[in-house]
Each structure stands twice: as C-alpha cells, then as structure tokens.
C-alpha cells in the first residue's frame, strides 16, 4: 500500500511538471498553430535562473525560506522575458510562414541548451532547495517527499489561475476565441497578435516555474533537462487534444501515473515506452485526442 501511495504522489508530481510545460505548449499551439520546440529551452532557462539566484548570486535570494521564493520568482521572470523575446524576435517576423516558425523554434531549442552548457558546463549542477522542503511526510504509511506536493500545488494553482484568466477576463476571451477560430477573431477587428505575445508570456512563465520547481524534484539542473521533458510534454499535449487546458491537465496526470507505475512494476524505462505507445494507439483510435479537440 505504501508503495502505491508513494508512486501515486511521485506520478502526480511528475504529471504536475508535465502540466506546467504542456499548458503553455497547448495554448500556443491552439492559438497560433506553432509547435514550440523551444519550450524545453524556456524550462531550462527558468531552472538555471532559479539555480543562479538561489546559489547566492542575486542579493536577497537564497536557498531557504523567503530567499528561495524570491529565487523562484526571479527564475520565472527570466523565463517569461525570454518567452516574450522569443515571440517578438523569432516568431513574429515569420507569421506568414507557419512551417518556418516551427523550424525557427527548433533552432532556438538547439541553441539555448548549448549556450547554457557553454556557460555553466554540461554536467548536472546540484540544486539548492530550502531545508523545509527536503523532508518527507507520512500518508497512509508512506513517506512522501514534500517537494512533490509543492509541484502538485503549483500545477493546481496555475491551472486555476489560467482557468480564471481564460473565463473571466477580456484577454482570456480573446485567447479562447482565437483558439476556436483565429480568422474570425481577426475579422472582428481584434488584434490577435497581442494575444500571441500574451500566450507566449504565460506559457513561458509556466514552463519556467516548472523548471524552477523541477530543480527541486530532480535535485539538480542540467541543460538537457528541458529537452527531455519536452518530448513527454508533446505526448501530453497531443493526448489531451491540442489547445485544451483541461485535456492537458487530465493527460499529464495520466501520463505521469502510467510512467511511474509501469517503471516500477515492470522494468525501468518500460514506463516511458508505454507512454509513447499509448499515444500512438490513442491517436489512431481518436485522432483528435482525449477531449476531441482538433489536432
């Protein structure tokens, strides 16, 4: 029983990490039809930003208490700014060439991790986390690491905030309408391009937050972390139905749990395999994903 509880929490923690990456990916794809291969790079930027600040380079930030919160805020801010710069400088000039947009993000996705490893080395760096989060707590006889709950909490908070934003604000309305039918929104005289930048900023912030908290989950940061998470985030986005936030949330929980349980009960590595095979099977049965959104 305790194993099942531990695996569930670990799977949910991993799922939360996937959701933080996939939510932005899904919104960006839904609105702009851009599959953002640089999203993993944004996660790495957030992770390195937080690591840099928490290692004592940023005055006021540190590895414990309020200092760590500041470090996470700093990492998220750096990720958000990078995402906005990416959209304005790389994506925006290519609006009329959709395939080139994807290719340009591929280039950025290759270049940014390489730059990170050029500056800080390609080896994993230990991630300084607050002592309060390194402990465990007991649930149903299982000792669950606290950082899992932090990730789950953050993912739930992001999901709630995004839901509120999409349903209650005017900008959210524009984003939702843009996902449904971009041409129609433009025809109504609304500048969708502002929404593009906004969605990139939101996606970048979520991914960078994922990177910052992923550092806690993995205990270290390395330049390739984002890229390896990105593939599973793609799986989540496609499984959930592109452009659907609820779908991404459901799919990330499913993917995280399947991966953890299969990795534990069969041989390690088989869980990763199971996830991609499930994706292929699902796409063949339901080409539009779980929620029936257009793929």
């Amino acid at each position, binding site marked *: 029983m305790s194993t099942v509880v531990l695996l569930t929490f670990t799977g949910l923690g991993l799922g939360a990490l996937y959701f933080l990456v996939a939510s932005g990916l899904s919104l960006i*794809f839904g609105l702009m039809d851009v*599959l953002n*291969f640089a999203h993993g790079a944004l996660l790495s930027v957030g992770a390195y930003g937080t690591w840099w600040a928490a290692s004592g380079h940023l005055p006021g930030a540190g590895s414990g208490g309020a200092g760590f919160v500041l470090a996470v805020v700093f990492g998220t801010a750096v990720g958000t700014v990078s995402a906005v710069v990416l959209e304005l400088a*790389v994506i925006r*000039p*290519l609006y009329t*060439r959709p*395939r*080139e947009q*994807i*290719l*340009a993000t*591929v*280039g*950025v*996705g*290759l*270049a*940014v*991790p*390489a*730059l990170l*490893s*050029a*500056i800080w080395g390609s080896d994993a760096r230990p991630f300084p986390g607050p002592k309060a989060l390194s402990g465990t707590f007991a649930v149903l006889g299982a000792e669950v690491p606290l950082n899992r709950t932090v990730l789950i909490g953050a993912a739930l908070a992001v999901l709630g905030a995004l839901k509120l934003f999409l349903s209650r604000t005017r900008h959210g309305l524009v984003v939702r309408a843009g996902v449904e039918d971009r041409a129609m929104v433009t025809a109504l005289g609304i500048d969708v391009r502002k929404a593009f930048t906004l969605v990139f900023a939101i996606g970048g912030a979520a991914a960078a937050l994922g990177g910052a908290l992923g550092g806690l989950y993995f205990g270290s940061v390395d330049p390739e972390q984002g*890229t390896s998470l990105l*593939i599973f985030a*793609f*799986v989540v986005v*496609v499984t959930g139905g*592109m452009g659907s936030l609820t779908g991404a949330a459901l799919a990330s929980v499913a993917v995280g749990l399947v991966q953890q349980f299969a990795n534990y009960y069969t*041989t*390690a*590595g*088989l869980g*990763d*395999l199971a996830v*991609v*095979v499930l*994706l*292929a099977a699902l*796409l*063949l049965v339901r*080409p539009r994903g779980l929620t029936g959104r257009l*793929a």
Partner: protein
Amino acid sequence: MTTATQPRGRSRTAGHPLDTRSRRLRRATRWWPALLLVALFTVPYSALPLPGLLDGPIGGPGNLQLLALCLLFGGLATGYDLLLGRTGLLSFGHALYFAAGTYVTNTVMLEAGLPFAASALLGLLAGAALSALLGAVSLRVSGIGFSMVTLAFAQAASILVQRDPGGVTGGEEGRAAPADRLPAALVGIEHTANLYWIALAYLVVVLAVVHRAVRSPVGRVWEGIKENERRVEVLGLRPYGFKLLAFVLAGTLAALGGLVYLLLTGGATPQTTTSDFTLSLLVMVVLGGSGSRWGPTVGGVLYTWADHRLTDLAGSDTVAGLPAVVRVPLSQPLFLLGALFVAVIYLLPGGVARLPARLRAARPSPAAAEREEVPAP
C-alpha cells in the same frame, strides 16, 4: 553562373550567332555534376592541402573519414527531403530507420554470426519493413499528428535501444562491429579510401533514386500532395498510398545510409536513434534548401563539415585564449549551428541552394552583370 547569364543577357538583342554559343555553353555546363563526381572520386589520390577548410592534406585518412561522413549525411538529408520537401510530410522519426539499418546489421553479425553481406541485406530489409509498418500506422493521422506519432515511435525505439534488452543493443555505449565479419578491404585506417568511395556511391545512389522518383508520375502526385492534398483527392487519387510509398522509399534509403554509417564508424551508437539526430537532419535540409535538387546534399555536407570543424575549433588553443564573451559561444558548436539555422530561415528562405538565384536577381541589370566590375550588392 556568370558564364550562363552573360550570353543570355545579350542574346535577346544580338540574335542568332550568340544564341547558339550560349546553347553550347549551357550544354557544356550541364555536365558539371559529372565533373564534380570525377573530382570527388579522385580525392583519395590527392595530397592537396585545403588550409582552413581541412587539417592537413585532403587525401589523409582523417580528412577522408570526415569527407565520407559529409557525403553520407548529404545523401541522408537528400533522402529525408523526399518526405519534407517533396511530399510535405514533416516526420520527426527518420532517425529510427537509419538506426534500424545500423543496429539490425550489426546485431545480426554479432549474434547470429552471419557474414556482412547477408546481414546488410537483412538490415536493409528491416529498415524497409519497419518504415512500411510504422508508416502505414502513422500516416493514418495527418499534419502535426503525423509528426507526433513518428516522434513517438522513434522515441520508443530510442528508449528500447538505450534499455539494452538482453544485452543485444549495447545500451548507452552502443556496440562495435565485429572486425572479423567485415570484408578485410573495409577494416582498418589504411582502407579509409574504400569507405570514402562507398559513401560517395551512397550519395550518388540516393541522388539518382530521388531524382528519378520525383520526375516519375508518382513524383508529380507527391508534389500535388505537398501543394494541396485535398485537390489530389478531388482528382480521384488516394494520397495515402502515395505518401506511404514516399515514406518507405525514404526509410529504405535511410537504412542504406545506416549501413554505410556502420562501416564508416565501425559500430552502432544510440546517438543515431535520438530525436536530436532527426532534428539535425531537418536542419541540414532546411540549411541547404528543402525541395531542391542539390540543396539537401549541400546542407548535409555543410552541416557535417561545420559540426566537426567547429568542434575542433572549440578545443583549440586560439579559442581558449579569447575573452569569455567570444569563447563561451564558440565552445559549443550546437549553439553556433542553431543560431546559423535561425539566421538562414530569416535571411535565406529556400536555403543555400537558392543563393545563386538570389544573387542573380539582386544584380541591377543584365548589362551591368555583363561588365562584371559591378559587384553584387
């Protein structure tokens, strides 16, 4: 290229005699691929140094190995462009079929003890069968869904290879090819020239197959699918079969490339199964010019050469002495290649292959081009 434009510019005004001259010139310049092939064929006999481009004489074993890799990736990129540039299919799983050629051949040699020729045939068949099977499945979804399913299959295979089931694939280290099973003429540093010729032959085969295929009636349907799949359907053709044919052909060519890679590097490495490998193919194709005859080849050669040379450069003393702002980006070839790739997308739509046409178009007028002293802006 100036020789080709010069007479054309004047022939409009001057008339007949020059027209025949231009035609003769053009007929002569049409044979440049054959001349290039002869030049490439004689490279192992040459001791010509290319300072800056290569270290030492061009016919040295190290340089031959690098040139062979360049040619191999030129061919591989050309095969990949059959999907991307000719049929409009964005596959993220092309590494899988390349790796199938490498791994199946190597594993059959190691485990079953078959000679190289039989193993190579099996490897090639495995690549063809795998691409037929997985292509048939993934082509049931279109657009970005197709890209994702191909990515998923390739990723699954990559995980499987790195998991090393039963010690067959060698896990993260890969496995060296058994030297006693390979023909003696293909083993050892003194036989690098043979490997170079094999790589050259591979490139020629791929170029010929792709050239023939895209000119055939099937190739025209591919072009139609790329431009507008719905219209092809309206014309009464089922795109599925045509797309599958392109997928299998590209997969088989990739498996053949995998065989050459096995010979060249003397083993199978899991790096060739990763999605990064497919992405680098994508970069090569776009760098050179997707959908053009020579573009992907040029892109593959350039990328492979730049990757190796930049890696050498990153480890050299000159770079170590530079200030940090310059040294740090230079130490990672992938950063430079990624940045170069983004720059090409912006500044050179259509890749390197479109460069001559763009330069020609940028010249002010045919008369000015004729005088030659006006440089292209």
